[in-house]
């Protein structure tokens, strides 16, 4: 089953919620998600909530990396709510940056506020 995405847009933050199992056939969905994000406007922070992602196939790593790179061009990226197994797998494959990963949505939002106060 293809992954699905949902955007929760505010003025300066957008939360992208992903669900499903990420594999190579989902490249088009990730691209469509980026198009939706561009159409939604400009955001200072884009938080990707991966709570619904059950895994990432070996062949999907490249698409996920491209997806992250495209987001970084639009704003600051934070990824949160990774399932333990998925986080271990993505980190082992070098697909995540430590400073962009937060345990849950509240932690990600707290990080945004604390960066803003600096």
């Amino acid at each position, binding site marked *: 089953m293809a992954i699905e995405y949902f955007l929760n847009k*505010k003025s300066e*933050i957008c*939360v992208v919620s992903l669900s499903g199992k990420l594999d190579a056939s989902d490249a088009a969905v990730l691209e469509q998600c980026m198009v939706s994000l561009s159409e939604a406007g400009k955001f200072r922070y884009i*938080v990707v909530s991966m709570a619904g992602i059950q895994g990432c196939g070996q062949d999907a790593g490249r698409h996920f990396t491209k997806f992250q790179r495209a987001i970084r061009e639009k704003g600051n990226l934070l990824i949160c709510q990774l399932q333990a197994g998925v986080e271990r797998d993505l980190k082992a494959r070098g697909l995540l940056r430590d400073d962009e990963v937060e345990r849950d949505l*509240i932690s990600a*939002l*707290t990080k*945004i*506020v604390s960066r*803003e106060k600096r």
Partner: protein
Amino acid sequence: MSQVHGKQQAILLFPNQLVSDVYSIALESVYGFPVTSCTSPEEVIRQIRAQPEACLIADSTALGKALPELFQAQQSFARRTFILLIGDTEAGLPRGATGTQIKALPATVLLSDVLAEMEKALSLREVGLRYCRMSLKTLLARNERLHFDVYIKLGDEKYLKVLNAEDKFELPEFERFQAKGVEHLYLLRGDFFSVMDDLLKKAHALSSSPSTTEEEAIHASSAIFDLVQNAFHVEGFTPQVRKLAESSISLAVHCAKRKTALSLLLSRLDESRGSYINWHTTALSFICCKMATLLGWESDSTFYKISLAAILHDLPLGRDELAALQTRDEVMKSGLSETEKVHVLKHPIDAARLAATVEETASDVGFILEQHHERQDGGGFPAMLDHKDISPISALFIISHDIVNTMFKSPPQNFDIQNFLDDRDEQQCYTRGNYGKVFRALMEARDSL
């Protein structure tokens, strides 16, 4: 993070859009609350009017000088609104603002701590909303076995059952609690409204029976106002609370139409003295109606307007020590905080706003309420209107209010209406405009009062 139960809405006010977005996402995503982000304190107050159940999270600097007004709005019509202020706030918090209504957190607070505070407050509020307060006197006045359990409040979250359904609540039980300094006990919300319904029926029966005495009407009216006051603090001025309030109007009208002399009615009222706001309101309602009858202004519409004004006039204040202040001078010299002083000085406007929430209320009720602390020489409050701007019905209300206050300050059974009139005549308190017209009519009837 646990879920807060019940349908809850959130209102936000942050000058920083990014911070506002953060709170908005957290409240929507974690709790599923619909969120309204406001851009000004005025918008916040408008939103609270529309959603009195809401939880407000705001940056205190964004609220700025509107904080006292916001607190007044919460006191007047949005008792259930929980306010969470973030920033340098402790100094600006109004006295009387309790932790369950309003909470201040430092600017450095973490988002997770703000949410934890909100959860705690909303959960406390849920507990608080399960119980309604009733005075010992009202419980005693029911004069029948309890058909509900009765609780005592031990803390914000703790209520202990002290009486069971079918228990008696008579003078010995009353005295037992009174000796411990207890003034109120608590009923479960559903039971409270069932008592309200019983009282409503009783008030209807009393007001339609020609044999009802002044004492019976005054006691029932006092019990009704106790429930109105307590229900208002939990519910606001809902149609059910209003209906109960209106039932006490019929009792005041019932007494006004009897041929009893004013002095006898005053004596009966004097015998029923209780806590300031309760007694003062009950007495004012009865005296206003009686005075209207004496002046030949007896009409259902006039009775309704002045009685409703009597019921509402101090409702926004809630505390006896605030309601007892009568003049601008007394307020300014009192030991109240600046916020409380503003609250007292503005309560006529807040009461008028309450009246405006009752659709069928004539604008006269609002005028009476706005003017009830004005004085002939312009030395009153809030608008410092002199005699030229005071309507006849407001003048009647103000003089009745003066009678009630003078009575309360006099030793029990020591008030004399003739002496009162002579004193005010000598001091020329009521000589000009509509004050003069009402007062002269009373002076003409002086010997028959």
